């Protein structure tokens, strides 16, 4: 739950705190005006609403304030529905709107950019005791990662020739440098089928609760996502953390996470997939 707004100290401060509380209440303007009164935010000396906002012969004070109250939620709803289309699709329009009102009650925006309003949303969804909302939290994570990938700086990318040019004895010490747009996610729900349903505009099943791994990246400024196996995820994570291929494989084997004899035959194919997908910026070896 968000901290309450403290009463203002000057008339200008009082007016602003009162108005913000009134027009951003999750249950609408009427509830906002009542809450502002109960919380001691009413401007000093004002007994009625018209003592603060006089209105005119065409619109009452309530109707004038309602323009701002309507715009507040409509703007945030439109922005977040555009940012999180698969989340909105899974929950449905009405439930998405209700969820947002509850979220904004607990996490009113404190950031100048609308891009960051949904930052606390995944963790908040997980704590609400709704299985569908918990699943939606993982969709939000993927959708936010896709936006983050979109905003990452451009970079060069290694091509298949760079991979083919790597001598066999250089593989163990080779380091893969990934593009800044690559994001790896470890999730508690298999959300990609629901996200694909949203993309196609068909009804989405509730995501199955099971461990899942996803890579998010971009190709020619188009956001992409791809499922990963657990060994792929662990290897990619180790390589992203700066390990050489040999160090990464050794780490996985020592950790008992993956059987090396099962892993090795797949690694070449993965490398080709990562390079062709534009995930790899450069491949370096100690010899350069």
């Amino acid at each position: 739950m968000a901290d309450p707004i403290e009463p203002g100290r000057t008339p200008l401060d009082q007016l602003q705190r009162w108005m913000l509380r009134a027009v951003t209440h999750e249950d609408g303007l009427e509830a906002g005006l009542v809450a502002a009164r109960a919380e001691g935010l009413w401007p000093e000396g004002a007994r009625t609403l018209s003592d603060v906002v006089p209105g005119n012969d065409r619109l009452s004070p309530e109707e004038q304030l309602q323009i701002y109250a309507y715009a507040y939620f409509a703007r945030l709803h439109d922005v977040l529905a555009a940012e999180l289309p698969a989340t909105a699709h899974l929950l449905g329009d009405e439930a998405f709107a209700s969820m947002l009102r509850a979220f904004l009650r607990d996490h009113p925006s404190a950031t100048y950019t609308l891009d960051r309003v949904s930052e606390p949303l995944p963790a908040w969804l997980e704590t609400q005791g709704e299985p569908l909302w918990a699943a939606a939290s993982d969709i939000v994570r993927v959708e936010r990662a896709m936006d983050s990938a979109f905003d990452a700086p451009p970079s060069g990318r290694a091509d298949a020739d760079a991979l083919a040019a790597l001598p066999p004895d250089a593989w163990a010490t080779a380091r893969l440098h990934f593009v800044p747009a690559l994001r790896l996610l470890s999730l508690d729900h298999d959300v990609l089928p629901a996200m694909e349903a949203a993309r196609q505009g068909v009804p989405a099943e509730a995501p199955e609760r099971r461990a899942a791994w996803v890579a998010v990246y971009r190709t020619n400024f188009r956001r992409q996502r791809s499922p990963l196996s657990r060994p792929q995820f662990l290897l990619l994570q180790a390589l992203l953390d700066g390990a050489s291929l040999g160090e990464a494989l050794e780490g996985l084997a020592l950790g008992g996470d993956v059987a090396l004899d099962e892993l090795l035959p797949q690694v070449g194919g993965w490398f080709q997939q990562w390079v062709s997908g534009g995930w790899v910026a450069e491949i370096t070896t100690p010899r350069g």
Partner: protein
Amino acid sequence: MNRFDLPDLGVGVGLRVPHFGHVTSGAPLHVDWFEIISENFLTTEGRPMVVLEQVRRDFPVVMHGVSMNIGSTDPLDLDYLAALKRLADRIDVAWMGDHVCWTGVAHRNGHDLFPVPYTEASLAHVVERIKRVQGLLGRPLVLENPSTYLTFAADGMPEVEWITRMAEEADCALLLDVNNVYVTCRNHGLDPMAYLQQVPWERVVQNHLAGHTDNGTHCIDTHDDYVCDEVWALYAWVQRHTGGIATLLEWDGNVPDFDVLEGEVRLARERRG
């Protein structure tokens, strides 16, 4: 020429995502300059920044923000201002500005352009903040008159008088949004021509034009339609009266194809003479 020696850039449009493909396609663009919403470029190094840098190679660019919160009683957001300055320096913008409004308080953001009560106390408060911001940014701030949907009982003077005194006491520049003048005057039963006749034009470096929604009892500044005849008439008066001010056509909702914007730009040019 205004007192800041900022140039008349002609008639431009907002740089918006639906037009990214067109404006970078190499097709001829029948506009003189672009304005960006500052916040849309502060947190990205991706396609928006790549497009902006390409556009900047061929056109002047102006930064216009919505989050400076200049009228608020909250402390100035120094991180935000530093980010604005970095972007302005990187893009070498012609000028930068925001709105005469507050957007949040108590460290919460309402993401709207809330009206300031037009009082002596709020005037002193805002003037002091503008001076600080101009010092931090190292350039004059260009502040826009807002569309407002309510007045406060505490108001002690008309908006145009308050904004004029703000600009003179803070020595800042103004963006006169002709559509906002019309919307605000309609909403509060005022005469827009009387408003325009009191504007300190030597401080105005830019005009905005936009469409709005007329609900009968009031107008909403929706930026989602053509400029209406009444606003065109006010704009023509402004251009005749001043000898020409850089003009920006805003269209943010139901954004049409770029050639529709170019049609509005052509109409603005005709009224500039």
